[in-house]
């Protein structure tokens, strides 16, 4: 079943339709999709864009580990985890996770677990670039 998993790091704009199609299948009754999108503010500062950087081969390996963990915990059909790097403008997605399953509970829980775990285990970093020209490397708290 792990042949059904797609993980990727890409500099290209992410397309939710395309990533949803990757996980659709005739036996699945549910698809859950999560998009992490660039916000226009951090505390009182105006955010212009984010710049993402990844340790690509290790990030992809950690994303494959997440797929294995999901399959140990839930009975899911297909998994796609795609993370964008480089500049990500406000409202664009930096990450899209899609999971299909026969029944709805599995795909929703798996996606929730996946985004939480991705933030704590996958070597990717973002720098916020503010309206005043300053910038800051972020740190996932949770």
């Amino acid at each position, binding site marked *: 079943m792990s042949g059904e998993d797609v993980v990727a790091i890409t500099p290209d704009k992410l397309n939710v339709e395309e990533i949803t199609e990757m996980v659709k299948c005739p036996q699945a009754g549910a698809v859950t999709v999560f998009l*992490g999108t660039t916000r226009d503010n951090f505390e009182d500062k105006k955010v212009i864009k984010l710049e*993402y*950087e*990844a*340790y690509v*081969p*290790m*990030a992809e*390996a950690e994303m494959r580990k997440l797929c294995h963990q999901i399959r140990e915990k839930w009975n899911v059909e297909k998994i796609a985890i795609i*993370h964008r790097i480089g500049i990500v403008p406000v409202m664009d997605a*930096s*990450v899209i996770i899609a999971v299909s399953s026969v029944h709805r509970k599995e795909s929703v829980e798996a996606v929730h677990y996946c*985004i939480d775990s*991705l*933030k*704590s*285990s*996958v*070597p*990717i*970093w*973002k*720098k916020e670039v503010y309206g005043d020209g300053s910038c800051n*490397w*972020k*740190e*996932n708290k949770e």
Partner: protein
Amino acid sequence: MESAEVEVRLLFFAKSRELVGRKEDTIKLPIHLLPAGLWEGILAKHPCLQPISDNITIALNQEYIAREETEPIVLKEGDEIAIIPPLSGG
């Protein structure tokens, strides 16, 4: 008697890349050493990392290693050691 040394690759990312001013370097390190010794060796060569040293994780050949681990590491020529500042993907 000192342990024999090997040359390994060092990769820097995000804040650590900016502090060091480059993406990659090489370093000579003992074949057998504790994780704590690995941190020390890297900080000795790149003291500019000192301000963030408490927040750095290290990956050896794309696997995280725990700094407080007391089992020694065995390095091979050409191993890939990545300096991992706090993650902020997603």
